[in-house]
């Protein structure tokens, strides 16, 4: 039996940015972007599910983000995760990778009882690939980045294949270990229809609080108790819950700052237009031959 914690992230779909989601000052209006489940995190969850299928154990998914990030947690439940935690607090906003990994590591310590921590190699909104290794460092456990496959787990050792420049290597790591997983490691399983029906009503504490707000007949404690009883409760962890050092969270805890953001403006006079005809292209080739660019 091996227990896994999987770090997942809801990300703006940066490949689908249209004109209107860019603000006038050229910055991105995140609220307008479609939010999606970071694909490599889905692959990480699949790898965790395969460990569970083979050896038994439980899977706990964790995300840090705004309240709406509970969407990706529900998707994880549909795929087969056992538990989900939403880490959310305004005090965590604006965090760089160092501050993010600090909060994640504190949350993982709080959840405890894990043999593996899985995460996608990187998230598409930042492409930094830093949060995984930084979380491992803060937990004081080894890391294997660019993991492609778990070949075996025996006693307290996992045998893992990872990508290296021009090939791969096979490593034996002492548990617990944190793995960051590459996109082509495994194909994530589809959402199970049965699990979808079972967990579509899962709600985070914040979502339950919203229900209470609009209905004077409901009491939050009772509601939480009821959802817990039906295994539909997504607990929330805030700064207070984690009793965390606020100097190391959010903007305050982030050594890197965005100094300037420039929208992508292209200068220059533009290219010489070449007619899409045999003659046009021939004369271009003549120019290139003459300039010794070709030939």
């Amino acid at each position, binding site marked *: 039996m091996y227990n896994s914690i999987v770090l997942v992230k809801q990300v703006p779909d*940066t490949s689908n940015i249209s004109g209107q989601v860019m603000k006038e000052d050229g910055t991105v209006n995140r609220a307008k972007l479609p939010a999606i489940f970071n694909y490599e995190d889905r692959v990480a969850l699949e790898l965790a599910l395969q460990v569970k299928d083979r050896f038994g154990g439980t899977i706990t998914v964790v995300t840090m983000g705004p309240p709406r990030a509970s969407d990706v947690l529900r998707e994880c439940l549909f795929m087969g995760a056992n538990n989900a935690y939403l880490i959310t607090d305004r005090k965590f906003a604006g965090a760089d990778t160092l501050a993010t990994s600090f909060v994640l590591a504190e949350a993982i310590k709080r959840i405890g009882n894990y043999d593996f921590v899985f995460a996608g190699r990187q998230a598409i909104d930042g*492409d930094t690939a830093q949060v995984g290794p930084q979380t491992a460092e803060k937990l004081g456990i080894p890391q294997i980045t660019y993991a492609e496959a778990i070949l075996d787990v025996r006693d307290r050792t996992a045998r893992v294949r990872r990508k290296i420049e021009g*090939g791969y290597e*096979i*490593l034996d790591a002492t548990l617990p270990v944190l793995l960051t997983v590459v996109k082509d490691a495994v194909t994530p399983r589809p959402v199970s229809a049965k699990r979808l029906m079972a967990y579509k009503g899962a709600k985070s504490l914040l979502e339950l609080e919203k229900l209470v707000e609009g209905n004077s007949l409901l009491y939050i404690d009772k509601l939480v108790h009821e959802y817990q009883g039906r295994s539909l409760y997504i607990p929330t962890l805030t700064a207070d819950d984690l009793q965390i050092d606020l100097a190391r969270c959010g903007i305050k805890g982030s050594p890197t*700052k965005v100094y300037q*953001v420039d929208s992508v403006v292209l200068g220059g006079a533009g290219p010489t237009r070449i007619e899409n005809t045999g003659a*046009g*292209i021939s004369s271009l*080739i003549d120019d290139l031959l003459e300039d010794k660019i070709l030939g």
Partner: protein
Amino acid sequence: MAENGKEVWVFIEQRVGKPADVSLELLSKGRKLADTMGGALKSVVIGDDVRSVAVDTFQFGADEAFLVQHPALKDYRTLPYGRILNTLVKKHQPRIVLFGATITGRDLAPRVASHTMSGLTADCTDLRIADISYLGKEYHNLLLQIRPAFGGNIIATIITPDNPIQMATVREGVMEKHRAETIRPVRIVEVPYVPDAVDDMVKIVEQHREENKINLKGAPIIVAGGYGLGTKENFALIYELAHVLGGEVAGSRAAVDAGYIPYERQVGQTGVTVRPKLYIAVGISGAIQHRAGMQDSNKIIAINSDPDAPIFDVAHYGIVGDAMEVVPKFIDAYKRRLK
């Protein structure tokens, strides 16, 4: 420690006794950064029997090299390499530490940055030293870490204002490698490696490597295809054009993601940066990440069916049209000229 607070360090990646190109490129850039600040450039070389690598770094501008040698350090492993760097960084407090944004650099840099609580910016496309004012405070000799962000829709300048140590990773080929104008006398500081049980929590069972035979960086002519080609079959036309012109084949990230072409041939921020004599972009829209990897090419021809594609803004020649139509005409015209 006269130079305290001004040192620029470069982690030197090495394999079989040879420094990686990206590390030498970073030394060349680091030399400039150090000169601007009036500080020293130091290389950090870790491995087994790698003194010659440390000596090589002086050709590219190092003032001093830290050398850590031990048979247990022959192949890169996160824990011992990280531990060594943590100790060195904490002791000497460099102002800037640069790593190649390779698989190794991206594994090591965040681990070290986390331990030393340093700022770290990934995949920078430019690094500069500047005096700036930020939130009403003046900062002298700060490192501007410039990178496309948010899927390439914006360019962000990142700073590490109130932290003593600024770290950054840079992809291979982004900075230009050149031998230093002044070669400093070789000064190597040997640092002993003290084994620790922690280092063996991860052991290498085996390694398989195929030397990369593709040399995009050295190719004078590159023909690159994008997602706009539509299918892998259509992409064969890119190979044909490259073959006729005697060039190499490359692709955009979208083409790699679509499976048209292997990652080793990806040009752009998260691939290779190239500066060929001629770059032909076919069916590539020209997102900033792609342009970051090719805009310094000597001549650029863009072929795209969308006249508003941003690739035309960096191109010297633009042909608006369907690639499947334009490329055969190009091949045909070129063959006829050679006759």
